[in-house]
């Protein structure tokens, strides 16, 4: 039995199977990416925060566009070579195509990596700050943590069913490093049955270990299951009695009077162990991601229901390099309230507390004034006397890293080489090169308060320590930062997966197509054509992705 029309087209439709199939598949892909692009439109139209326009570096995106368009050409040339039965040419063009795909993914990987390490924070007054977090001993520690301090007598209470083992290990590791131990606060008795032999006994002062908590969990589950059976039967019995007492009545008429006879079953219930409390004997510190902990001054709760009675330490977010200040969101909120933007900005926490920010902002204002003058000069005024062109909100209210860099260049004569400047287009600002006189001090500790201005010859991209109370929302430049980055990573990520998939298929034909070429070259032609069609589609999507996500 042979499947027909794999190689040769059917006469009346003029198509071979794979060609119909790939176009059908591409139609579904149009709908898939259409869904994402319509989500983009929806998010943008409905955004209740300033949409980040032109926030991504254009150069990597542009190079990727050229690379992908080039690979589109080479894949069709590869197919043409195959049709002309020129194996060597096919190989060359296919190689170029696959290499282009690799270049694309490498550039994408670099882009993503830079983003994932870049921190952003929105303060409570809606000022947005961007940069890189603190260093410890010269190593970049990109951590944003809530710090707790346990002292002798501090307790941790675990929910035996839900406890997350990894966090227990972390706490134990921190304790061990400080020479502290966590011991069971009081003896724990659980029952697996009713005789003495079934009692599970854990002595006071047992050491906290994951295995101990597992034992608690097992004992608890046994007791819980037993108790539930007893209670269920008791409720059933209560209903039976109630039904007899209430003939001819719907059950909802007397349901509130039916309940378990607690006294009767008390003796039948086993002791369960839902929680276990441990006490610390020495001081040590632990830290958690803000997402995982609900912190309070004396008591904090983790996502797995662990309750930690510990002191909340100041847990500021330390920017080792601040590279952008953005007041657009603050201005948007102020305008909604009828407050003038300049007034709101002057009253922001940042300008009130950071002298460098004040300097930079003043310098920025001067630039904005010049821009306004130039726009009036170049484009004139309209009939009402208003300028034809006004600076955008981004130009008015955001100091991006490029502007900070210019600040450093103008005020401190920093000069970067052309190659360094080019690298910055891909990797973000080069902090070291722009602070050439700064000495990397080994005493930099994230616990140390670094005074502003005293930044060891820091001339641009200053330090900033943001107190935890000022923080509204913090995130790296990941899908969680805002809906723009969410849709950007999703669309480009999915597109990247399609690039990888397409490249794998094309590479397969490149490396393993020789045998098929010798046995049935037309079949290989068809397959390469179909693979090429997919590849062109991937290019098509990028043709839209680039202007929409990078330029608009």
């Amino acid at each position, binding site marked *: 039995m*042979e499947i027909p029309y794999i190689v040769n087209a059917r006469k009346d439709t003029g198509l071979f199977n794979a060609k119909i199939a790939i176009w059908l598949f591409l139609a579904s892909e149009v709908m898939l990416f259409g869904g994402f692009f319509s989500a983009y439109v929806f*998010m943008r139209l409905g955004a209740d925060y300033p949409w980040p326009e032109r926030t991504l570096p254009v150069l990597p995106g542009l190079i990727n566009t050229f690379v992908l368009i080039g690979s589109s050409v080479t894949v069709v040339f590869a197919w043409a070579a195959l*049709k002309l039965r020129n194996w060597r040419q096919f190989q060359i063009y296919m190689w170029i195509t696959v290499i282009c795909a690799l270049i694309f993914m490498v550039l994408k990987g670099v882009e993503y990596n830079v983003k994932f390490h870049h921190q952003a924070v929105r303060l409570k007054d809606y000022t947005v700050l961007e940069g890189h977090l603190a260093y410890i001993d010269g190593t970049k520690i990109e951590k944003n943590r809530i710090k707790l301090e346990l002292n002798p007598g501090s307790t941790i209470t675990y929910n035996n069913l839900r406890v997350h083992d990894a966090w227990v290990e972390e706490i134990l590791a921190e304790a061990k490093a400080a020479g502290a131990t966590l011991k069971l606060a009081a003896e724990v008795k659980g029952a697996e049955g009713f005789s003495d032999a079934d009692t599970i006994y854990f002595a006071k002062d047992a050491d906290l270990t994951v295995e101990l908590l597992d034992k608690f969990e097992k004992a608890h589950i046994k007791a819980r299951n037993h108790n539930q059976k007893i209670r269920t039967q008791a409720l059933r019995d209560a209903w039976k009695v109630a039904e007899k007492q209430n003939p001819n009545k719907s059950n909802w008429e007397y349901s509130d009077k039916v309940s378990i006879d607690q006294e009767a079953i008390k003796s039948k219930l086993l002791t369960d162990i839902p929680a276990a409390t441990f006490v610390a004997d020495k001081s040590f510190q632990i830290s958690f991601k803000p997402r995982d902990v609900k912190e309070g001054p004396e008591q904090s709760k983790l996502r797995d229901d662990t309750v930690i009675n510990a002191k909340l330490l100041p847990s500021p977010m330390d920017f080792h390099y601040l590279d952008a200040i953005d007041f657009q969101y603050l201005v948007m909120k102020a305008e909604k309230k009828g407050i003038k933007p300049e007034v709101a900005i002057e009253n922001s926490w940042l300008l009130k507390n950071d002298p460098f920010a004040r300097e930079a902002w003043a310098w920025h204002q001067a630039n904005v004034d010049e821009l306004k003058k130039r726009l009036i000069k170049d484009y004139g005024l309209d009939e009402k006397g208003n300028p034809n062109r006004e600076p955008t909100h981004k130009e008015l209210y955001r100091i991006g890293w490029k502007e900070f860099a210019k600040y450093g260049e103008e005020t401190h004569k920093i000069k970067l080489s052309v190659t360094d400047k080019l690298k910055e287009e891909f990797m973000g600002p080069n902090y070291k090169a722009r602070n050439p006189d700064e000495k990397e001090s080994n005493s930099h500790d994230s616990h140390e308060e670094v005074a502003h201005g005293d930044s060891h010859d820091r001339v641009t991209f200053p330090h900033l320590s943001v107190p935890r109370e000022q923080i509204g929302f913090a995130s790296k430049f990941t899908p969680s930062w805002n809906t723009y980055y969410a849709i950007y990573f999703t669309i480009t990520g999915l597109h990247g997966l399609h690039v990888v998939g397409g490249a794998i298929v094309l590479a397969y034909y490149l490396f393993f197509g020789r045998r098929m070429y010798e046995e049935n070259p037309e079949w290989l032609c068809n397959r390469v054509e179909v693979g090429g069609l997919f590849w062109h589609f991937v290019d098509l999507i990028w043709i839209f992705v680039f202007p929409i996500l990078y330029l608009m």
Partner: protein
Amino acid sequence: MSAHAASSNSHDHSHDHDDHHHNPGFLKKYFFSTDHKTIGLQYGITALLFLAFGFYLMMVMRWSIAYPHQPLPDWMGCFLTDNWKARWLVDGKVSGETYNMFGAMHGTIMVFLGIVPLGFGAFGNYVTPLQIGAVDMAFPKLNMMSYWIYLAGGLLMCASFFMESGAAKSGWTNYSPLAGFADGQIVNQWLAGQTQWLIGLVLLITSSLLGAVNFITTIINFRARGMTWMRLPFFVWAMLVTGFLLLLAFPPLEAAGIMQLMDRVAHSSFFMPTGLFTKSEGLADLSGGGSPLLFQHLFWFLGHPEVYVLLLPAIACVAEIIPVNTRKPLWGYKSMVYSVLILGFLSFIVWAHHMYMTGMGDAVSTFFQTTTVLISVPSVVIITALLISLWGGSIRFTPPMMWACAFIPMFGIGGLTGLPLAFNLVGLHLHDTYYVIGHFHYVVAPGILFGLFAGVHHWYPKITGRYTSRFLNHLHFWPSLICMNVLFFPMLVQGMAGFHRRWYNGGDAYLAKAADSANVFGVIVRDYIDLNIVMSYGAWILAVAQIPFIINVLFAWKKGRKVENDNPWDATTLEWATPTPPGHGNFTFDVAVYRGPYEYSRPDCDEDYFPQWQAPNKTGEESNEKETH
């Protein structure tokens, strides 16, 4: 080397290794087969098992609705472990959380794991290549992969019942922000039931997409000689449209699923509005700026075509069975074909009638109201054509015909109860009430499922060479028909009285105990709440009524009355020209089609049927025989 294309008879290494010597091992023959018939059966059996599981979930839900304060009876809980019961049935009662979990999974399993695989995957796979005269599907290996990806997705979704978080519990519609947050207390989000629902969904969508590509390619390129488009059985047209619906409507849901997955694991805010506050988390640690409405748009963009994906295979089965059992051609074949094509197109632009309460505004609502009312026209054309097809026929009440005849009024009720829901204003009163549940269950349960049962009985003789038992079929049919109505009709009544969907206690929390209470709604609830018990008994008896069907299908396979020949129903479509059961490659002769698919009771024929594949009479009555290639 020349640039000529290879000639059609030269070494076309287009087969897999089972070419001349077809002796695959046991696993390759029954599990990893690439034969469309085996795959169809795999889909069928798996789908029926999932349907049974979904049915069980519903029975437990009905207990909670009828007797919300009473512990689940032992006979219903016998499948559950003690550990599971201790976790989810507090004091033996079905809690709200458990009810939500069962409700969400009941919907998901019935729609995505049950009816679509049964209608499209099972019937479509088995019958379509046979009816067009093809040797198999265009991409047999892809077909096999479709099945296994479906199974993987289904098992993943069901496995989540046993996790700490339980399975998904935010409705089968899985709206954000609830679905973005639910199971948020699980530290490793990948182990949360809600997340796994999304992953399972992505797998299911992939399986459907591959299947749709296969179907459409096969129908376009594998039609036998002489099988022109207007000679295709209506079944094949319906499968073609279903394929396009799956192909084009599922991807936006995949997009929404991926975005919701990102919301859960990457903490993005696609569907999370600003300022979201929950009891467990307080102010959500999210960026906000997202739109819950976007999820609804993307979900229902699939959701509406999806219901036609459920419907069309069942109508396809019924449309095949009626001509065979009335010995008359299908009335209005051409109108039915055009109607199903228009139905397919229109189904893409009616989706927001599921969203009338979201405040979309007049312009949008009016648009969708209009298209929704319009779409009732092709559906009515199809049902009316089926009904008129019965007129003047010589009706044989075989098991398939009984189910097909029951389909028409049951689906009619379902469709007619849908008409009020098309209107924005009526939506104010009926949205999210039991009326909607009654409506769509009428369409799917006594509607679509009856159509699929009809299909099972109709093609059973071809698959196994034996008839199903008529007696067992009566035992299955009559109680099912009655119980379906006992179960779903009161829902329409309760819905109009204002009973909401997804009330885990059947309305108990809202009822006013005193008959003269000032709480008007409470008094109305009180007046209709006892219907819950009637409906629940309907459901439980319905369960018992399915047992004869299971016995029938299993026993008839070895003990049923044997068929007399390869075409026991004296039908005209191509699947009856194959050996019983069809072998690998399906046909033992070179198939050519000479006429339309429903040539019954032709005056110029001795027999009361003239099969499509039979060569024309020597009198040359077939003057418009078309050559395709």
